[in-house]
């Protein structure tokens, strides 16, 4: 078990190193100097040099990369003399646009994305799995057929279309919900939930389609297995057989996909955030990219990769917890 975790962590570290290297190499191949843009029109060469020094982009690329990684691990200092500033670990540099520390930007934006994804994941997993389970238990009925149809359509629906439909129907037309907004959970839990209900519904409904299909297929397969028949034959009540025995065996692949989906979504749900005007990580990436604000882009891409890699490890560990047949080695 421990060996498994250590090995997975090592692989994860190497993967992240490669991703950061590729991203860094690509991004810093950009020729236009951000220092020139920041400095403005009446700028001498010395001024530009000073700004570049402040931003830490004067050294050759490999040295910049080493400094970047060191900054994340132990922090770094930018500039000299009056312009000297300490950037404590984990240091991701400063925004090219407004000189804000990138760590601060991420800390501001991440809770929004985490709130959106967290709530939506609860909706899509609960809705999807229960829909799939019920249709598996009632194979061939009208309910089953309808559920299959809806999930087929839902799997082909796009967030940008469905979100706008919900926005039109629930906000503009009927006024049932307010326009989405973000209030920190700690500030006002009620307003937090109300403001994020629409994105939760959008992402939740659409993603649940895939889960319903998967859960149904898994459940149908599990129900035909011997241990389910044995459990029924022993006289266990239906609820216990389906809810405990069958569901536990059927849910393993769903956990895999759910874990990876959540990991990917945490990297930024930029479409949802754009539609509903929420200032999450995805929106931050979109904005940063448009202004070639590289330190922010670097941070969000790296963060998204970290989420995916961590989700992979968590899923593998969860496997062993949920399914007693799985042994980690």
């Amino acid at each position, binding site marked *: 078990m421990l060996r498994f975790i250590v090995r997975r962590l090592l692989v994860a570290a190497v*993967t*992240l190193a*490669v*991703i950061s290297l590729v*991203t860094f190499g*690509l*991004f810093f*191949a*950009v*020729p*236009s100097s951000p220092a020139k843009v920041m400095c403005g029109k009446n700028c001498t060469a010395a001024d530009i040099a000073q700004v570049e020094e402040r931003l830490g982009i004067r050294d050759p690329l490999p040295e910049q990369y080493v400094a970047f990684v060191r900054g994340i691990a132990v922090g770094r200092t930018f500039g000299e003399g009056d312009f000297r500033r300490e950037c404590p670990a984990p240091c991701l540099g400063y925004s090219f646009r407004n000189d804000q520390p990138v760590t601060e930007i991420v800390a501001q934006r991440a809770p929004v994305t985490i709130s959106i994804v967290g709530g939506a994941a609860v909706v899509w997993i609960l809705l999807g799995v229960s829909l799939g389970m019920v249709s598996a238990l009632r194979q061939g009925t009208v309910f089953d057929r309808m559920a299959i149809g809806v999930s*087929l*359509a839902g*799997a*082909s*629906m*796009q*967030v*940008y*279309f469905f979100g*706008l*439909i919900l*926005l*039109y129907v629930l906000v*503009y037309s009927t006024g049932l919900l307010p326009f989405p907004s973000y209030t920190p959970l700690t500030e006002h839990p009620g307003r937090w939930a109300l403001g994020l209900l629409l994105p939760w519904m959008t992402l939740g409904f659409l993603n649940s389609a895939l889960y319903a*299909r998967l859960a149904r*297929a898994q459940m149908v397969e599990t129900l035909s297995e011997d241990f389910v028949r044995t459990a029924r034959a022993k006289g266990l009540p239906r609820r216990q057989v389906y809810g405990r025995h069958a569901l536990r065996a059927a849910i393993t692949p769903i956990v895999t996909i759910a874990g990876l989906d959540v990991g*990917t979504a945490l*990297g*930024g749900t*930029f*479409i949802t955030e*754009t*539609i509903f005007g929420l200032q999450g990580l*995805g929106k931050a*990436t*979109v904005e940063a*990219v*448009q202004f*070639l604000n*590289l330190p922010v*882009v670097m941070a*969000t*891409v790296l963060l*998204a*990769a970290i*989420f*995916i*890699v961590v989700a*992979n490890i968590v899923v593998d560990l969860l496997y062993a917890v949920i399914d007693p047949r799985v042994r980690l080695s």
Partner: protein
Amino acid sequence: MSDTSHPTLNRAGESPDPMAEVNSPVDVIPVHRRREIVGRSPGQLAWLRLKRDRTALASAVTLVVAVCVALAAPAIQWLTGIDPTDKFVDQLNDFGMPLGYAGGISSDHLLGLEPGSGRDILLQLVYGLRTSLFIAFVSAVLASVVGVAVGIVAGYARGWLDSVVSWVIDVTLAFPFLIFALAVIPIVEDRFFTAREAPPPSFRIALIIATFGLFSWTYTARLVRGQVISLREREFVEAARAAGAGTGHLLLRQLLPNIWAPILVTLSLNVPQFIAVEAALAFVNIGVTEPTPDLGRMIYNSIGYVASDPYYTLFPGLTIFVLVLAFNLFGDALRDALDPRSAR
């Protein structure tokens, strides 16, 4: 769906055991029916199954119509006499909203006008369909070609080459594809063009296709690698090798024909994914640039008008939905037809 529901298929697929015929008179096939037994290739069998599938038929018709409309875009332009870039500003009110009902739908403008710019939605849609389908098809083919090449080499090579390729696949899969695509496209463009000279639309399109191809070959590669590994020890490969066949012949003539089915399925399921992702990129302004019409950008432009003119959102949104749904259904049907054992 199982084979037993297709009596004709069974007859064609598995020729009855001659001994069984002799021993059990019930199973003896009458002479006049026995002539019908003709050998059918797996491809023909799949084609038969596909033809019998109503979902496949419906989605195929939808797709053919979509492709025809996209191809016939200049004809539609000629018929209506409207250019996709024409701006009918005189038919907008002072606030830039189309006059008339339902977003300015009239006999001249069958799907109405875009608020703000006053362009004809039908023509934008038809030309946008072209952009979408072109990018999705070319990217899917590119991803498949790269994936097949890499997968077949990795599966056949064994040893360090296989390890390296598998590792590259793993790392690429860990890349946050959408976020990365979002970041790569403007940055690469900035490398080649300064802010003053706008890059030609073809450059952006090529960039999008390259990004899609570069990050989506992994799935095909993994699949092909697995298939090749399971096939390379089979007798027919052994026989070909014993007969003195070269590596190229083994890979292309012996192995590839046996794995085209899953490749075709991934290819057909990749297309709707690319349509959706391309529109998603356009949705955040990283997609195809003006003036090339694009479905995703239409939806993006429509966000501000959702409350006042929902039809502007509806038409491109529905188009993408129907297109993606048809491709997904067709891909599923294709998988069922090519591999009847894989029950959904």
